[in-house]
């Protein structure tokens, strides 16, 4: 942070394809309406007048004609603006399967483990998790101490959109040491772009965890779809997608599994163009694919994640195992195959 203070400074403006319209008009035209918006809510985070709304419906800016201040920040941070799809495995330092001894999460509980040990190390002083209420609607929880992670509802993945990045804005301005973020690959690329445009995010967001992701859903679409299939939402104890099937285990113990192909009609358009399976730009990617049952496979990409994993090994917080890289590679290529870009015009 330069101590020098300027009375005159300038900022680079993004290009404006449609001349007369405000920047959000362009974003709406080229990203949202053209269907490639991945609902990563980064624009809702940066919008100075907090006009862009996210939540459980597509991104929108009510009455943007007057309220938008035409600053272009949303375009500069949108990962899908001049979209170059990221795919493949990306470079990584090591890849290992691990099972946390302290927490039980979706599979190995490694996401919770990494955040807990990062908190212990002091790399970050808060992290943004996605909790849920009775109807599995995602709620945002700022985790600042380890006890909060004991709450069962905070751990485990929720297969629906949540405004994690919108909450990042308050977290970044209140934190001292740093913030930990967990998100799907599109959110990860959103955070990276945000870090490039606003220096404060670069200094304050220390740990970005990417999750293996084939596609994500709107909450109301996913759960009305499950209601039709006869699943009582209130009684679901755990949801999981493994081996091409969506498995919902009830509190009463019995499980209902639905092939993923049947979810095709409710997959949002943004996910159809995304080829990044494991979040190549994240510090560490975690997922259930390619690791034995009860384990999650961890792909460590940057040295920040490296120190955390060494800390976990040193304190033996997690049981390590062997990960089958070929299975992950197969899924990575599968995602590139099914989500071509530019998308073939469906007749």
């Amino acid at each position, binding site marked *: 942070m330069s101590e020098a203070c300027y009375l*005159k400074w300038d900022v680079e403006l993004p290009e404006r394809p449609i001349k007369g319209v405000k920047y959000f008009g362009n974003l709406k035209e080229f990203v949202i309406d053209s269907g490639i918006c991945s609902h990563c809510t980064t624009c809702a985070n940066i919008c100075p007048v907090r006009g862009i709304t996210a939540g459980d419906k597509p991104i929108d800016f009510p009455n943007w004609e007057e309220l938008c*201040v035409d*600053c272009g920040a949303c375009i500069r941070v949108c990962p899908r603006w001049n979209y170059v799809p990221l795919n493949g495995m990306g470079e990584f330092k090591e890849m290992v399967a691990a099972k946390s001894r302290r927490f039980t999460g979706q599979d190995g509980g490694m996401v919770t483990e990494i955040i807990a040990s990062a908190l212990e190390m002091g790399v970050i002083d808060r992290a943004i998790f996605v909790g849920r209420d009775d109807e599995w609607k995602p709620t945002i929880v700022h985790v600042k101490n380890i006890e909060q992670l004991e709450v069962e509802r905070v751990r485990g993945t929720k297969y629906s959109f949540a405004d994690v990045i919108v909450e990042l804005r308050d977290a970044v301005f209140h934190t001292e040491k740093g913030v930990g973020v967990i998100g799907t690959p599109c959110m990860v690329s959103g955070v990276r772009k945000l870090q490039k445009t606003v220096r404060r995010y670069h200094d304050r967001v220390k740990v970005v965890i990417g999750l293996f992701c084939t596609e994500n859903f709107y909450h109301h679409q996913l759960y009305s779809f499950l209601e039709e299939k006869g699943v009582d939402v209130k009684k679901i104890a755990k949801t999981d997608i493994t081996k091409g099937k969506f498995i919902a285990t009830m509190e009463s113990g019995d499980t209902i599994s639905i092939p993923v192909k049947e979810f095709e009609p409710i997959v949002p358009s943004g996910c159809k163009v995304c080829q990044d399976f494991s979040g190549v730009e994240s510090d560490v990617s975690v997922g259930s694919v390619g690791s034995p049952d009860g384990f999650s496979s961890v792909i460590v990409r940057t040295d920040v994640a490296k120190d955390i994993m060494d800390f976990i090994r040193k304190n033996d917080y997690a049981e390590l195992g062997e990960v089958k890289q070929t299975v992950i590679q197969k899924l990575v290529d599968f995602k590139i195959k099914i989500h071509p870009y530019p998308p073939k015009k469906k007749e």
Partner: protein
Amino acid sequence: METKFGRIKVLYPKQRLIDKIKGHVEALNAGLKEAIKPGRITIEYPRERRELPDNFRGFLLFDVDACISCFQCAFVCPANAINMRGAPNGRYYPCIDYTKCIFCHFCADTCPRGALHRTKIHDVAFSDMDEMLATTEELLKPPEMIREDKYLVKYEIKDGDIVLVKEETVVELAERPKFEIRPAKVSACAHPENCIACTLCVMTCPSNAISTKVENGRRVLIIDPKLCTGCGLCVKECPTCALALIER
């Protein structure tokens, strides 16, 4: 009163018959003494008015040219009695709603320019509540009020007893106390790399100190230190905390 490390046992008056009679006699002659030589401390209000100190918290007067419309008085008011209203020159000036005002004078203490200052007007009654919203124009001069007071009464303590000293003066209620203007700071951009060119600071700055223009694809923002009054609104408005107040 035997006191053992800081505690006293309370003594009850004895209640034998002789003490009761003595008590009755004491009470009667206390009343008689007062009846013969009354120790009156009454201020006959409509005719006499009590002398008020300079920092008395009465109605407020406003001084337009001192105001830098920094919204601090509106934000600090506990009863939300001060609302700002757009003036012809685009800036916002305070209006005080005396139906809500609790006369705590946080606003008079907050104003960095001393634009809101105290008066000694306090004894007023209104017949309906719409008249009590004093807009900016009505705050400039003190309200004309019905005054029937001919004397000014001072509370003084002479040889251990209250004495009400009466003076035959009609006191001036609303003279402007002196207020040393605080040396203000100047706004400047401390973290230009955080700026997202949203021009909120340009739109909010009451004294048009920050100007902006677009040159070949880049938005340039200039702060004119002479115009800047140091009100701090732009620093608060900036979504990414890029601006800061520095010494002049």
